[in-house]
């Protein structure tokens, strides 16, 4: 059952079809909420977002992609949460990551040694909110510029420029040994 069929069935009141859709996007939605600042409250945010998404499904344009539409709702819920508690949860490295260096497929030398990784993470944490949001969407979630624009509710040009500024800032912060 593809997204479109699942949505069509959900609109007919088929909760099992919607359950399939929820399961399909659950991991991505959690990741989005957690990285945008919900932290360990991501589960509540995501549950709320899926309930709202179901209630707003009649307003979903069927020829559009479901993924960014859903993530927009997740981002909004996350924003409401972080605004209400006055801060974003910090980005946290997975337990064990410190002793388990990531070896990317890219042979161009993108491997992060522990020290540089920690400095880069600290630099991302220190970004202004908008720039951090752009970095999270574009690199941590690997969304396209167009998807990022939709999820954050910005024009694509703003995504481009904000991402560009964030990269410049990060480059300065961790400048010494950049290839």
């Amino acid at each position: 059952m593809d997204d479109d069929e699942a949505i069509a069935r959900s609109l007919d009141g088929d909760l099992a079809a919607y359950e399939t859709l929820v399961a399909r996007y659950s991991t991505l939605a959690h990741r989005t909420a957690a990285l945008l600042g919900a932290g360990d409250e991501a589960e509540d945010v995501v549950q709320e977002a899926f309930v709202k998404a179901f209630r707003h499904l009649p307003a979903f344009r069927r020829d559009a992609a479901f993924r960014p539409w859903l993530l927009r709702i997740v981002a909004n819920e996350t924003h409401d949460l972080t605004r209400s508690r006055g801060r974003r949860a910090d980005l946290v490295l997975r337990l064990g990551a410190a002793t388990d260096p990531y070896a990317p497929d890219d042979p161009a030398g993108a491997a992060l040694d522990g020290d540089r990784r920690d400095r880069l993470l600290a630099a991302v944490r220190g970004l202004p909110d908008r720039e951090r949001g752009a970095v999270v969407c574009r690199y941590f979630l690997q969304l396209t510029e167009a998807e990022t624009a939709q999820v954050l509710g910005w024009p694509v040009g703003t995504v481009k420029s904000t991402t560009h500024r964030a990269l410049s800032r990060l480059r300065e912060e961790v400048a010494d040994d950049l290839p």
Partner: protein
Amino acid sequence: MTSHDPGAHDGRNGEPGPGSGRSRDHDLDGAREPERPGGLEAELIALGALLDVPAPPPPDLAAKVRARLQPTDPQEGRPLTDPQGSRLPPDPQESRPLTDPQGSRPPADPRGSRPPTRRSRRSRRWKVVAGVLAVVVAVTAATPQGRAAVAGILRLAGVEIHLDEEAPAPLPGAALLPGERAVPPGDLARHVRFPVRTPSALGPPSAATVSDAGRVASLFWPDGVRLDQFDGGLDPVFFKRVGPPWPQEARVGGLPGWWVQGTHRLGYITRPDGTEVPLRQAGPTLVWQRDGVGHRLEGVPTLGRAVAIADSLK
């Protein structure tokens, strides 16, 4: 916190791209950017993979969301949202593009944050059912929850069913079983101390969990069907609170079982202190026992189908 400020105008630094309007539909699935990430961009992608993002197993979330959307009138059998969506008030915001920088967001639906109100409907049928139950029901004056009168308690296969005179209030939210964690469906048998079976009438399960240090094994199918198998023995494992219509008797492979129609309060009884942990509103459930193992099959809408699935356990 400004990241969603509608008033932010750093769009001046970049031309409004083609994706700023409704054309988003066309470029979202195109080439994934960045196509050739530079050093720093690749490092950021690598860093993202190392970030800690705890998430529950997808089937758990899906079940919780479903439980919140589920109609609570067991007699009605359809969701509260009608297919035409006319339940949603027309909202001018919804017609605005989602990329609108003003941040058109789905309006907060006050009903979205809590389960729908129960619309209880008394069935005349419960009197007939009660007549059948009288033979086996141990009548008790106990009122464990202190609110509704309990007309009786059924115990079968490690499940204790409290029969209330009136429908108990539905449980808001949903909780996992104690220590519930996902395991590959094929490995489930290794995690529990009793034989686990799979119904051949359903396809392969999409997920499995084991709970409470191997006391409960659960299998899930994508259409909301869930089979719990548990070491029932003499001690109850699950408790249910139901109002009329009360459970009806069923036969599974010639053995007695109970069919609990409609949604009902489900809880879990922890050993050894007998504490009851409320779990969630459960869907229609068939309860039976076989070879000392308790079974509850949830989410199959009709008794006939549920029994057919139960009979197909291999």
